[in-house]
Every structure is written in C-alpha cells, then in structure tokens.
C-alpha cells in the first residue's frame, strides 16, 4: 500500500502554495464599493444620484455656513458686509445668546443660578438613569427639585425648605404605616405632607422674599431654552409616576377608580395639547381671582403633565397587557398582596417592556414644550418668534435662528434616544 500513492496518482503536491493576495476585484476598497455601493445596476444608479444630491446640498450650504458672519450688531450691518453675497448672519446668535438661553427678563447678574441648576441636573439624573451607581446618590436626586427651585426662582429659602420638610414628614408617616396597609401609609403620608405645608406656609414671615439671599425671580421672567428644559424635565418626571398610577387604576377591579381613570385618560387623549394650554392660560385666569398667584408656569406644568400622563398610562397599560397571566397568578400564589405583587413582580417587567414607548412620549413631550409660545410664554421658539424677530435690528432673519433651535433640540432628543437604547440592551434578559 505504501507505493500506491506514488504509482496510482500522477502528481501529488507535497508543499503548500505560497499565499497570494486576493484579486483586486475581491478585496479592499474596490470590493467594498462593489458590495455596498454598486452591487447591481439599479443600486449603482441610486448611489450616483444620492452622491449628486449630497454634493449639491453641501456645495450650496457649506459656503453659506462657513462664510457666516458672527460679530455684527444688526442684520443690515451683515448685509452691508456681505454686499449681495449669500452667507449666514450668525451674529444674531452671539448678540442674543443670553436671551435665547434664559429669556429676555431673567436678571443677567443671576445667569449663574440656572447654569448651576443645569449642572446639578446631571448629578441628580445620573443615579436614576444609571442604576449601577451607588444607591446613596439618590439623596442628591431627592434634594435636586428643591435646590433647583431655590436656585432658579430665588426668594426666601424657607419655601423650598418647608416643601422639603413636608415631603420628609410624608415619607416618615408612609414608612411607619405602610407595613399595616399600603393605602393607609399612602394617604397618611399625603395628609402629613399637606399638614406640614400648610402650617409651615403660615410660619414663613411676610416679605421674607425681600430679604432673601438670592433675588426672587417671578415665573413670568423665565424664558429661552431654560424654560423648555424646565418644562420638559418637570413634566416628564411628574407624568411617569402619575401615568403608572393611571395605568394600574385603569386595570383596577374597583369600578369607581376604574371609571375615573378611564374617563381621565380618554378625555385628555381626545383633546389637543394646544387646547389644554389655552385652557391653562385663558380659562383658569377666570376661575381664580386676579392676582391669586397660581402662576402661569404652574398652570402650564399641570396641563402638560396631565397630557403626557394620559399617554404614558396607555403605554404602560400596553406593557401590563403584554405580561402573561401566569405572572399575576404566580404573584398571587406566593401570597403577595396587591402593592407587593405590583412592586416586586409585575411593574419591573411591564416597565421594561414599556421603555421605548415612554421614551417616545418623553421626546415628543420635550418638543411639545415649544407650544407654550402661542400662549405668550417666551420659550426658545417664543423668544425667536417674538422679541428677536420683532426687534428693528434682527427683523427678517430666520434660518440662522431656527437652525440654532433645532440643533439644541436635536442634541437633547438624540441623547434621550441613545440612553433608551442603552437601557434596553442593559435590561435585555430574554434569550434571543
């Protein structure tokens, strides 16, 4: 047998061929181009058309962008410098920068306050968003609303302190009674908080605002992108818990609670947000006596929160409905009562399913905050459409301003969407 190979086969290669480089058509740039850009005639044609469109867009906008003027005092000065050439007049952004960010009435010497609040916001959001961080950091989050309120509105420090005390008292009562019954703990906590607020509110001396460390800034003076951020953050963070409560209420077996929740959700979802804002601005002014002090910001926050809570409730209801019935039964068979079952078994799963939907509502809501410009609040868009475009210097400038607004909104919305994708990957426990 040993000679069989040599005799029976004419030729046997006994060494490997030296490695050859792949042919030019199957490697490197050429192959990549062929696979990705020109795999077929049709796709090749589309590639060429797309390239042409991109080229046309870039060549028409790039000079406009890069020749932009940044340091004039008015639009007519820009036009003088340009002398008929077409280029952007970004000076409006530099000249009105503070107004775009803070509104036109926030005292310039106090700009550091919202800026500090903005930085603190990240510290406060981090432990909520990234749950790998130590849980103790949540204390910062709990203190943030009061700190931010004090920083942005200023005035006497007693107002946020009393508010904080009320919440603290409510929590203590809740922790004391919740072991007996959830409802007792909850309502006891709410009652305790209100008691502290009312008693504490009476104890704040009249005129405390005048002697305060930070100058008081009325809500009417807030504006610019700051207002969008404040409305967006407040309303999203308030509407998620309310939305959860509404979603659970809608599934409740108690007919009264169920009817209230269904009517609320369906009514709010059936009404456009702009209508609710008009109600907040116009109708509520009739219900309260003039000068009663329920200020426009609070009214708008209530309306937007109600609106987004109804949407989030429906998103979460979707998550609840997607859970197999076995999960509910498993919770029951373990002997958990309703709050425990919800807190430990149902909601963690339902909320995970609902993340994309909640984020969708949050992004939409954040952009919807620009609607307040129609009820004469000066958010970013309101500032642009009102004071800036109505000034003699900048009347007639549009692209630069609205581009700036879209860039700001894009940054925030893209950030939210990236976070939600990270969260989904992080929470993925199923087998795919």
């Amino acid at each position: 047998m040993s000679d069989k190979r040599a005799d029976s086969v004419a030729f046997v290669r006994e060494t490997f061929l030296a490695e050859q480089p792949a042919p030019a058509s199957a490697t490197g740039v050429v192959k990549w181009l062929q696979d990705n850009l020109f795999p077929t005639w049709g796709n090749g044609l589309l590639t060429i058309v797309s390239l042409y469109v991109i080229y046309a867009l870039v060549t028409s906008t790039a000079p406009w962008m890069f020749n932009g003027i940044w340091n004039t005092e008015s639009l007519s000065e820009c036009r003088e410098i340009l002398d008929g050439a077409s280029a952007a007049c970004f000076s409006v952004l530099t000249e009105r920068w503070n107004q775009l960010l803070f509104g036109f009435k926030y005292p310039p010497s106090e700009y550091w306050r919202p800026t500090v609040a903005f930085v603190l916001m990240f510290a406060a959001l981090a432990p909520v968003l990234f749950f790998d961080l130590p849980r103790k950091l949540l204390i910062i989050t709990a203190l943030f609303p009061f700190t931010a309120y004090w920083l942005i509105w200023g005035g006497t420090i007693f107002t946020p302190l009393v508010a904080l005390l009320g919440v603290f008292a409510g929590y203590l009562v809740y922790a004391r009674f919740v072991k007996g019954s959830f409802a007792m703990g909850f309502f006891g906590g709410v009652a305790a908080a209100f008691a502290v607020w009312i008693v504490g509110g009476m104890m704040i001396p009249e005129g405390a605002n005048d002697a305060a460390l930070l100058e008081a800034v009325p809500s009417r003076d807030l504006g610019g992108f700051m207002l969008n951020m404040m409305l967006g953050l407040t309303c999203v963070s308030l509407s998620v818990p309310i939305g959860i409560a509404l979603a659970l209420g809608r599934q409740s077996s108690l007919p009264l609670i169920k009817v209230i929740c269904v009517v609320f959700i369906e009514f709010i979802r059936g009404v456009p947000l702009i209508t609710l804002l008009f109600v907040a601005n116009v109708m509520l002014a009739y219900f309260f006596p003039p000068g009663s002090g329920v200020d426009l910001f609070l009214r708008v926050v209530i309306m937007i929160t109600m609106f987004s809570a109804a949407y989030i409730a429906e998103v979460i209801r979707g998550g609840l409905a997607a859970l197999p019935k076995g999960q509910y039964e498993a919770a029951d068979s373990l002997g958990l009562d309703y709050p425990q079952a919800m807190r430990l078994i149902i909601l963690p799963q339902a909320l995970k399913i609902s993340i994309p939907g909640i984020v969708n509502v949050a992004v939409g809501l954040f952009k919807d905050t620009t609607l307040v410009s129609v009820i004469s609040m000066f958010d970013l868009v309101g500032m642009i459409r009102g004071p800036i475009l109505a000034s003699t210097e900048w009347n007639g400038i549009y692209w630069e301003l609205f581009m700036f607004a879209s860039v700001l909104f894009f940054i925030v919305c893209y950030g939210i969407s990236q976070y939600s994708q990270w969260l989904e990957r992080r929470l993925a426990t199923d087998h795919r």
Partner: protein
Amino acid sequence: MKKTVFLGALTVAGLAAGVAAAGTLDDVKARGKLNCGVTTGLVGFAAPDANGEWKGFDVAVCRAVAAATLGDPAAVEFVPTTGKTRFTALASGEIDMLARNTTWTFSRDVDLKFTFTGVNYYDGQGFMAPKALGVSSAKELDGATVCIQTGTTTELNLADFFRANNISYQPVPIETNAEAQQQYLAGACDVFTTDASGLAATRATFEAPGDHILLPEIVSKEPLGPLVRHGDDEWADVVRWTLNALITAEELGVTSANIGEMSAAAGGNPEINRLLGTEGNLGEMLGLSADWATKAIMASGNYGEVFEQNIGESTPIGLSRGLNAQWTNGGLLYSPPFR
C-alpha cells in the same frame, strides 16, 4: 404661604372674580406696578431690546400711564399677549390696560365689554405685492393668494373688500407677523395684507425693499388705541387723559426738553399751566397728583417725540405722520381741551 393662598383662592374664587374688577386705579397704586398688556413683539410698536428693556410706540403709552399714576415710568409689568389671548387677559383682570395695536371696533367696544380710551395711531389696511407680480391696484388681485394674520380685523376687512369688488382670493392663514414675512418672501402667497404701518415696517427689513410695492388701496379704517375693561370709568379716564396729555403737549409745544422749565412755575399760557398742574386742580379730579401730566410727558416725551423715536421717518420703519399729524397740521389728532 403659597399653599394657603392657593386654598383660599379656591374657596373664594367664585365670589371674588366678579368683585375684583372695581377700583383699578386703587389696585394699581396698592400694587405699585401697572400691568400693561403689549404684543409679543411688533417692530416699532413693542419689543424688548438686547437688554430686555421694552421699547416702542405702544410701550410709551404704558410708561406714560405708569408715570401719571405711580410717578415712575419704570413701574410697569409688561405682559406680552398674542392676538388670541389679549382680550381674555384684559377681561380676567390679569392686565390693567391693553396697549397692543388693537383696532377700535363697535363689537369690541360694546359686545366684548371694553372701553377704548382714545386713538394713538390711525392706521388702515393695505396690501404689499412683489413688483414682479405686475399689479398696480388691489382690484386686480382676482384669484390671488393672500397671507393674513388670523384672529384680527384684517381678516374680516379682507373678506369684505374682496366681496365688495366681486373678486376671489385664497387666504393663507398665519399666526404672527414674523411668520407672515417669511411666507411672503418664500412665495407662499402673492400678496401680504396687514395694517399699512406694519407693511412699511416689514418692507423696511427686506433685503431688497425696492422689489416690493405697497398698493394704493387702503381698505379699512384701523384706529388703534389703548383699552380698559368696561365699568371702571375712573380708570378709563386716567388712561384716556394720559394719552390726551401727550397729544395736547405736542400741540402746545411742550417737549421733554422744555418741560422742566415750564412745569417749574406757572407761565403765560393758562392751558399749559392747567396741563402741567401749576394752575387748577385737574390732577386732583382724576385722583392723581397735580403734576401727573408732567410726569407722563417726561416719561418719553410728547406724542410727536414718541412717534419720531419709535416709528418716525428717522427710524428704519420710516412712517410719515400722515393721518397722525395734529389737527392743526391737517391730521386727525385732536385732543379735547384741558379745562
């Protein structure tokens, strides 16, 4: 504190809403600030500048009233309102007066229960069209698309004009003046219509103003003036006579330059003396100090000065006095006598 106010507010809301309307002058004095409704921004008439300071023709009326009632032209809280929110803001008591280029019409005066306290600008609705469109009269606009601000009298006037001339048009409804300019320049509509003052101001900001013409037709009367709620005649008198004081001051030659001298002591002209409070007790009749009109005029000058500073021929808006000249110069400004 806020909370108690809120709860208290809830309980008395129904009662108080009706009662609170009385005694606006006392409210303003007690508050130390005048709440004055203005536009969210209209070139020359009201807009905050880079420092957040409100400037403009309507703003000057607010400042004059604040100076007359409180002695301080800066004691004004400007409440920006849109075309849709202005009347409810006034009716609900959120603002004490509205100076927001608002046309005085029968139904607003009678049906909406407001009192117009005079006219600070006589305007009329006109049309602006690109020269390239080749029209020379609004009557040639059959079938044109027209940019128009909603919720204003312009909308109604436009319909009346086209119906009366038996021609048709396509409205392009628009929320703000700034938006209208952009739509018009982008070619979304053939014609832009609004008050002639607004058209002139708008055209002045265009890159090539010469490419657009204002059509000769003025299709409406638009007397613009400040207004207050019905039923508080004392307050209406204050606003009315403050405006009249500005107009009379121009007629009598009282300017911000010579008013210090004129108001120091009674001079030779008895009407000037009565106006400036060096003689008689007109201020007392209004429930104000004797030098109320002096302060009002000092706030930003007499009517003519206010006009020149904000919308006159030396400004980019470049409006001529036209109908808004004194009656002695062939205009319509005619203040009743201070006597």
